[in-house]
Structure formats: structure tokens, C-alpha cells
């Protein structure tokens, strides 16, 4: 009885110890957890809607807007020039084509910040460089860019400057006045390259 268990224990230990002896191989292109934490704590992953609007206005050639919402939501409304990479396609080869372009400033957006943050985490872990999140997502976009509120007299000068810039941007994106309807505003149904649907999908959740 005891001998049997001793033998089994020895086999287990040998198998486990084998890993220690095996030469190291690097399987992951992933980021170490510590670096990940630093990146998460660092606020610089966010771009404000104003910054993004400004980049679009100035036709910044390095800007690559990535819409991580579902395809149907994307076709309903999207930001000019954005490509649609739904969250579940983010690890595919099709997505890799876009994300691996290191020279581009890749900005994720979704309706809020949750999906874009998840996309950002994923791409960070995959080691993609130069990725950002549009803070507040499309909700914030509509609130600040499409329907900016005029600052009250007495507010600092910068508030007025921001308002002016937003007002201009909202006109550029087709909103026009502050009461612009949000549905049509800023949408560009054509002209955005549709990414190739990737074929490989990661596994979904357990319990």
C-alpha cells in the first residue's frame, strides 16, 4: 500500500521536476504582469474625444480608429475612417494586420469605455505598440463633440476655446448646431475599409 503511493509520488515529482530541468523556451509574445500593471496605472493610454476629433480634423495620417463594437452597431454609426474589429475578432490574423502597424496611432473606441479598455488590455498583452483608448467612447463623443454645451460667462478662457473647437468639429462632422440629432452625426457609412473576417477564434468562457 505505502510502497505504491511512494512510487506514484516519485513519478509525480520527476514529472514536475522535469520542467525545472527543461531548457527555457519562450512561447509568449505576451507582456509580463508587472509591465502590464504599470501600463494600466499609467493614464496615458487615454485620448480625449477632443484630441481624437482634432486628429480627424487635421487628417492625421498616423491615426487608425478601431471600432470594437459588433458589426451591426458599426454599420449603424461609426467615426470617419474607422475600421471595425469586434472584440471577439481581435486576436485574428485580420486584426493583426491593422494592429501590428507600429507607425499608426491605434485608437480603440466603443459605446462606453469598457469594450475599448478590454481591447486595449488584449492588444497590450499581445505586445502591440502605440495603442490608445478614446476616453468615454461614443457616448462621450456625442456629448462633447456633437452636442457641446456652451460654457457660462465667467468660466475660464480655456473652456471657451474648447467649446469653439468642439463647435467647429461638430459642424465638420455634420452635426451643425448643438441640437444635432446624434444618430446621423459624424457617421460615414462608406469609405471605411472593412477588415477581412479573421478565421481563428479563441475559446470562450467556462462555467
Amino acid at each position, binding site marked *: 500500500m505505502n510502497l505504491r503511493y511512494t512510487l506514484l509520488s516519485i513519478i*509525480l515529482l520527476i514529472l514536475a521536476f522535469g520542467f525545472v530541468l527543461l531548457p*527555457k523556451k519562450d512561447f509568449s509574445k505576451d507582456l509580463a504582469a508587472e509591465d502590464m500593471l504599470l501600463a494600466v496605472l499609467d493614464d496615458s493610454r487615454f485620448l480625449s474625444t477632443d484630441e481624437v476629433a482634432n486628429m480627424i480634423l487635421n487628417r492625421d495620417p498616423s491615426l487608425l480608429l478601431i471600432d470594437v463594437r459588433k458589426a451591426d452597431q458599426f454599420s449603424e454609426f461609426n467615426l470617419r475612417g474607422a475600421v471595425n474589429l469586434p472584440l471577439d475578432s481581435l486576436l485574428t490574423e485580420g486584426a493583426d494586420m491593422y494592429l501590428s502597424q507600429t507607425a499608426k496611432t491605434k485608437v480603440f473606441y466603443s459605446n462606453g469605455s469598457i469594450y475599448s479598455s478590454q481591447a486595449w488590455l488584449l492588444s497590450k498583452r499581445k505586445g502591440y505598440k502605440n495603442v490608445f483608448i478614446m476616453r468615454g467612447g461614443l457616448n462621450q463623443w456625442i456629448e462633447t463633440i456633437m452636442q457641446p454645451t456652451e460654457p457660462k460667462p465667467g468660466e475660464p478662457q480655456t473652456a471657451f476655446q474648447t467649446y469653439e473647437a468642439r463647435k467647429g468639429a461638430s459642424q465638420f462632422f455634420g452635426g451643425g448646431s448643438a441640437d444635432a440629432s446624434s444618430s446621423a452625426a459624424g457617421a460615414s457609412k462608406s469609405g471605411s475599409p472593412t477588415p477581412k473576417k479573421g478565421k481563428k477564434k*479563441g475559446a470562450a468562457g467556462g462555467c
Partner: protein
Amino acid sequence: MGPLIPNEIIGANWDFLIALLVGIGFGYILERAGFSSSRKLAGVFYGYDFVVLRVFFTAAITAAIGLYYFQYFEWIDLSMIYINPLYLTSTLIGGVIMGFGFIIGGYCPGTSVCGAMIGKIDAMVFIGGIFLGIFFYGETYELLWKKIYLDNFLGAPLVFDSLGISNALFILGLSIAALLAFWITAQIPKFVKRVDY
């Protein structure tokens, strides 16, 4: 290279058949090892039967060692398998609630299914309880749980990264810890009152 279905080496329509096979294996082993008896399961908390600890630990170590050897031989791409995301707050609170559920109800969802299939009435009502619990959670999700459910998201870290050691060292440590646990728990029943069930 595995995983075969996400890598499209075999078709996705095999998914459900494999689910069934995995389930049959899982159910057969659980029942066969005695996980269909709540008093046998509860033994792990009172020192009269350590079957839960033995099966649980052996399975986790076998699978971990196996998977990492598979990775070493490049039979499986571990970056494509599902790693549980860590939302620290909800994982901890959920775990504590489940701990109470375990010590009060005597089953966990998987074992209650096994128990119910061999005619344990307490297992059947336990499943009814899970149903009610999930229903209650669903109805009150936005009100009570949403905030803690999404709080403290830390990505999907692996435990050896979190501890800052290599995976080899962690697996070795876990194996030694398990062997020690097996040895210690083999001595305990000598000191506690025997429970017949």
C-alpha cells in the same frame, strides 16, 4: 497544434459531441469517486474523508503538468485556451458565498448533478436552489451586483506571473505541496471520530 477546434483543425460541429464526451467522463469519474454523496464531500471540512482534496488536487496537478508538457512539445497553444479573468473583488466575494453554499448545502453544482442522477433527493433540491439563486442574481444584477461584478479587473493573469516565479518552479512547488497535503490528510482520520455514512 491544439486546441483543435479554435484552430479549425477539426470542424466546429464536433464541439458539441466533444462536450458530451467530456461531460460523460467528468460525470462518471465524479460519481465513481463518491462525489455524489454530500456527507462524503463534507468530510473534507471535518477531517473524516478527504476524497475531495485528493481528487481535486490530483486532477489539477495532472492537468497542469499535462498541459504545460503539451505546450513544451508544441502540441497545444496555451495562449488560445480560456484563462479565467481575474476580477479580484467579485472572485473573492463570489468564492466566499460559494464557500457558505458548500458547507450549508453540501454539494457544488457539478456534484449535485451527479447526486441527483443516482437518486439523492437533497441533490435535486440543491439544483432547484441554484436555479433560484441564479434567477435572483439575474433579477437583481443591475441593482446589487453589477458594481462588484466589474470591480478590480486585473486581466487574466497566470499564477506564476502573479507570484513572480517561473512556471516550472511553481508546478514543482504545487506538486510538493500536494504530496505533503496528501500525506498529512492521510494521518488525520486517525485522530478524528469516525463518521459512517
